[in-house]
């Protein structure tokens, strides 16, 4: 299995190479470039041509790509046109950090709420509760982020004026009690983005928990435990819960992918200075180096997520012997 992981990781540079070349070509294939966007309304063609030449934007695509690759391998991802005087890495890392905090918190909530709801539905399978819970969660999943955010904002920020209308101010605020005891409370800026992130995510986790829990309940050892006269709560916590959790490992990767996709919209709509919003700004203004850097970030993330998903499949289902399949 170690060899398999290493082989998959060795594949990563190849993927990155192809992905960056693809992105590089597409970005430069379109009309327009960051030089004219950065120039403002008085654009002097001679000056712009000179800037292009000095920034190395007038060579062939392959030449330019070679230059970019050579720098990138040494950790230099270039300089942003949108933010002069800052390297792309300097801009991206704090933004990734913000997005990662939000995303992690969202994941924890998705699993923290989804698992109990799934267990509840399984426990009350056959009653109205089961379809009601699952149906509600499925409905929440079906509402696009674009539709859910304006009403949330209206309700919490405009009508009742209890939450800010977006932005970012760190993960926690501290309440000091008597100047001695510090109680960290989640920053109010977090609530609406977290709602937007997590509402569509519960259904997947809860449904999988429910299915596996139902299957586990039919297993022999559960029946044995019940036959032994263990109280129902003990059966649920000692046997059903642990064994239903296992398949959930596999959906962590999928849930993470959902959060990453959601970040593009949630961050754009709520003015959160994260990587998703930055990616869109870079794409629109054709900020070449920034586009490439965000592509690298997302590609690494996706490749690792796929790897994690494959590995956990193998762990959960011994029949899928990782590394022994034909691929």
């Amino acid at each position, binding site marked *: 299995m170690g060899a398999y992981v290493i082989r998959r990781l060795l594949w990563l540079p190849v993927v990155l190479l192809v992905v960056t070349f693809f992105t590089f070509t597409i970005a430069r294939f379109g009309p327009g470039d960051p030089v*004219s966007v950065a120039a403002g309304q*008085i654009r002097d063609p001679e000056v712009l041509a000179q800037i292009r030449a000095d920034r190395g934007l007038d060579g062939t695509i392959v030449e330019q790509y070679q230059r970019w690759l050579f720098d990138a391998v040494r950790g230099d991802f270039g300089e942003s046109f949108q*933010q002069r005087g800052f390297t792309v890495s300097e801009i991206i890392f704090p933004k990734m950090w913000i997005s990662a905090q939000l995303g992690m918190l969202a994941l*924890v909530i998705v699993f923290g709420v989804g698992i109990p709801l799934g267990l509840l539905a399984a426990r009350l399978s056959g009653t109205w509760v089961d379809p009601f819970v699952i149906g509600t969660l499925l409905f929440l999943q079906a509402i696009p982020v674009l539709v859910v955010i304006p009403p949330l904002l209206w309700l919490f920020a405009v009508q009742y004026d209890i939450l800010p209308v*977006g932005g970012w101010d760190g993960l926690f605020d501290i309440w000091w009690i008597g100047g001695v005891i*510090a109680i960290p409370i989640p920053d109010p800026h977090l609530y609406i983005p977290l709602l937007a992130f997590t509402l569509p995510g519960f259904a997947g986790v809860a449904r999988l928990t429910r299915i596996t829990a139902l299957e586990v309940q039919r297993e022999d050892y559960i029946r044995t435990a019940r036959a032994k006269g263990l109280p129902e709560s003990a059966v649920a916590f000692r046997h059903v819960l642990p064994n239903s959790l296992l398949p959930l490992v596999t959906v962590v990767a999928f849930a993470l992918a959902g959060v990453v996709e959601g970040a593009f919209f949630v961050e754009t709509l709520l003015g959160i200075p994260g990587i998703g919003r930055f990616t869109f700004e870079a794409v629109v203004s054709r900020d070449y180096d920034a586009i490439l850097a965000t592509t690298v970030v997302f590609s690494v993330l996706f490749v690792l997520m796929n790897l994690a998903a494959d590995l956990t499949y193998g762990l959960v289902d011994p029949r899928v012997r990782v590394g022994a399949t034909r691929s």
Partner: protein
Amino acid sequence: MSGQNRLLAILLGVLAVLVLLVGGLSAVLLVGGGSDDGSPSGVRSGTSDGGGSGDGGDGSSSATGRLRLSGTDPVTLDPHLATDASSAEYIVEIFSGLVTITPDLEIALDLAEALDVSADGTVYTFTLRDDAFFHSGRRVTAEDVAYSINRATSRELQSPVARAYLGDIVGAREHLAGQADSVSGVEVIDDRTIRFTLDAPKPFFLAKLTYPTAFVVDQQQIESNPRNWTRNPNGTGPYRLQEWRLGERIVLESNARFYLGEPPLKEVLYALSGGSALTRFENDDLDVASISINDVDRARDPSSDLNPLYAVWPQFTISYLAFNTAKPPFDDVNVRRAFGLSIDRAKIAAVTFNSMIAPATGILAPGLPGYTADDKTLPFDPDAARAALADSKYTIQDGRLVGPDGPLTIVITEVGAGAEAAIDTQAFLEQWRTELGLDVEIRQTDFATYLAEQDAGELQMFNGGWIMDYPDPEDILDLKFHSGSQLNDLSYANPQVDAFLEAARTEQDPELRLQQYRDAEQLIIDDAAWLPLYFSQAHVVVNPAVTGWFEPQMVIPRLRFVEVNR
């Protein structure tokens, strides 16, 4: 079972790691919250964090109060590279130049205390104030001014605007092209005297010098930290950058040694992220907020609590429809006029923009030199429009204009940031369809594509805007409509217009010069090269604790006129 227990352990481990990660991160944030270590911010040393009420590093400071605004990240704080309004907003407060623009849009001396212009209008001799200092405490000398002009026009800096703003100085173009080591037209006479020689008498030269490209920067700082100096810039302006956290906030602090006296306002906080400004204003998180189209009815309602705080300020920004006069069918003036005569701008401004913009009366906005109040634009007159179209060399067939080479497709291009096209463009399309019987297609592109095609002169018809850079008609009429101008993206050429514009370039009599611009403006409107649409307005609400706030027509230094009494 044992295998499954191992798995369970792994899973719980993962969860535990997640929880620890989040918890640990927040702990780091809590501990490091005040010091901002490791963030790409330019934290100025010497002052304590936050609060704003606390006294800064300078004991002699008399400034008080804290103003909270919403803002965006500047593209750059290097005055010589900045080309956009959002960067200039900060730069004009942090830096300054020889001359500036007052709130009345007069050109006034700033770092200079005296100016002598030679009789032929080509030699400008400035005498510097002796009490002007950089934020670091170093005195500003003529050498600093000369260094700044030479830096702005250096080939290495690649300033996209240096040629436009400083190209009138003898030798600046050669310096920009890398053919000279310095600008020959800039001479340091002594410590406090500097002389500029121009290639011709240019009445608008002083206006151009008010732009950040001519601002003074600190040579020592730039040479010691050429890459990152703008994160902690040492300027000469009334405010200095105290903190800049990318995408989060910018804090400006008053400069106690400012040569015109320390500004009364101590601290200005720009929040760079966050949603609707008005909601934040109403939650008392902002002191100034712009009003959106959905809120303007409430702000106008005399019984609303917003109404007393609400004000409208005209802006030097015009939006227009432009025709490429080299591309059929817009090579025919009758077609262009027909398009202009068939749109009802007044009604569209009233309905779709809820009267938040003013229908344009010409090309020059109210307040600009040369502006007259009478409406010089094409009126809404469908009958005249149809008559003009009938006079053209094209005929209409199945909703399309047919020329000698067959039917023509008419496409209007505009920048589309989101899904929906500009609401007024869609209304125009409908009016051309109903009044003229012509089908026009909308094409939305992103900004980069739009600029590339506009510069290449490929756009047949497009929706554009122009923000005045300095308050002189030359900045719009000569730049956009002279047949030789590189910014003339319409292939527009009218020898009469060219003659007026060229005469005005060197005309020394101000009144005569403005009349020449007015004549050119009327000719351009009659040729319908542009259809001027609207003049922008700023709609804002201001917290009653703030006095002296105003929305200038263009970016000018204003924070030092503001006070906050809280």
